[in-house]
């Protein structure tokens, strides 16, 4: 009974320490647990993979450093996928604290694959107005983003001699930490009839499953797991050919699995202990009566 009470009264700091060790250990000593791609993530990968070279993709990267571990690996993998397939991504963010992350991601991937800004891709940066920005882009991207992130006029860029509005995009993708998936869907993808996919933080994943079920989204990648699955699909198909290393999401999934295992075991053990204690207390009460 002492053990049961000790477990039930365990100091929360002991639990924190075990969680910290469960995260740190697989990073130092990778377990290489398998990452199995789900149909939801394959839906995005296969749609992008089937696009002909030279197609334009609009990517809304609407997140900030708080969601970096979940969403940045997905964004990097999608950009790498676009460049491998010679697709032309147009990257922008509706979040004011996002451009720094996006700049690092797109410059890293563009350098790796030898792509040129304004010709093979465009980083539009941030523009204030969320709804107004999406509606503006539906009629004209160069008019909404007069300059790109680096201050160069968009209207004179070769990439905007090929496309000028959302309806000319072959795919729309929102990498979102908030509710922008619905915004892009209602004001961008649906009215302009452009297929759309979404990657979101795990917290909001369940919110978007109805759109996947209704085929309004071709695919959905939820949280770090979704990012790891996309990295795995990219790695399996193009990893050797283009020397793509495993990304942060795949490396983080070992730690994710370890912590989940600990949480599940903790819930089971705590429940068993709770029932043992309840039964013991009932017996004690009966004995004293």
């Amino acid at each position, binding site marked *: 009974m002492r053990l049961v009470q000790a477990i039930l009264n365990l100091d929360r*700091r002991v639990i*924190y320490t075990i*969680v*910290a060790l469960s*995260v*740190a250990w697989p*990073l*130092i000593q990778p377990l290489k647990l398998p990452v199995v791609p789900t149909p939801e993530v394959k839906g995005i990968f296969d749609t992008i993979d089937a696009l002909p070279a030279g197609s334009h993709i609009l990517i809304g990267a609407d997140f900030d450093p*708080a969601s*970096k*571990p*979940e969403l940045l690996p997905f964004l990097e993998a999608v950009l790498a996928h676009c460049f491998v397939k010679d697709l032309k991504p147009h990257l922008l963010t509706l979040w*004011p*604290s996002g451009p720094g992350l996006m700049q690092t991601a797109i410059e890293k991937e563009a350098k790796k694959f030898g792509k040129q800004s304004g010709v093979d891709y465009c980083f539009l940066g*941030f*523009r*204030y107005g969320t*709804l107004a920005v999406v*509606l503006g882009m539906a009629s004209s991207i160069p008019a909404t983003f007069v300059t790109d992130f680096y201050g160069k006029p968009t209207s004179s860029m070769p990439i905007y001699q090929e496309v000028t509005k959302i309806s000319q995009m072959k795919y729309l993708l929102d990498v979102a930490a908030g509710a922008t998936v*619905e915004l892009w*869907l*209602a*004001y961008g*993808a*649906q*009215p302009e009839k452009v297929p759309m996919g979404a990657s979101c*933080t*795990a*917290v909001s*994943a*369940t919110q978007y499953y*109805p*759109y996947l*079920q*209704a*085929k*309004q989204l071709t695919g959905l990648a*939820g*949280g*770090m*797991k979704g990012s790891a699955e996309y990295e795995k699909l990219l790695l399996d198909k193009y990893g050797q050919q283009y020397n793509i290393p495993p990304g*942060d999401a795949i*490396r*983080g999934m070992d*730690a*994710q699995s370890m*912590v*989940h295992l600990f*949480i599940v075991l903790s819930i089971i053990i705590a429940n068993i202990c709770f029932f043992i204690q309840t039964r013991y207390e009932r017996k004690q009460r009966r004995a004293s009566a």
Partner: protein
Amino acid sequence: MTPGEVIGTWIAVGLTLMMFSFIYRDNALFRIGEHLYLGISVGYFVNIQYWQVIAPDVYRAIRVDHNYLPLIPAILGIFILLRLVPSLAWLSRMSFALIIGGAAGLTIPNNIHGLFLPQLFETLRPFDAGLAGNLNQIIILIAVFSVIIFFFFSLEHKRLVGSASKIGLFFLMIGFGASFGYTVMARVSLLIGRIQFLYYDWFQGIIWPWFQVAILHRAI
């Protein structure tokens, strides 16, 4: 790593540890980190607002392009700030009326066409998707109607309505369970991100090379 990156990493490590110190107990270091975060965020947003909106769309438009139309939204924006002056607070109603009216006009038709109707069609889809698809469709129908009944309070939840609302509650619990599971994954991901930063960027990127250089220096 450039010297700037090294300094930046050290600052980020310090702030990360300051925030983590709350796990042990509330303390002054955590408070400093918290206030720094708040202050920097507000400063950053004010800066972004100025350089992304005020400077190009108002100042530049008026001074350089001699386009005086942006004066209208600028004045309406100032009206909102006048809520701080009780005698002039009524002026803000004009701005709010425009914002609410404009937003409602834009969002209602688009949300109905883009989100609500496609979801409604999918919920009431004909049974023509094979055995598994039809079974899925039946589950969706039962879930949607029972959850609607659960939130229908004009009838007492007894007999048939009570049973249906209990089924609705069951589906709600499944939904909450899935959301909670995903939330746990999200929070763990944040911790993984920080530990990855501490291990890869700080330990492997700065500490370990310094340590190796120090050993080499001593050996020579």
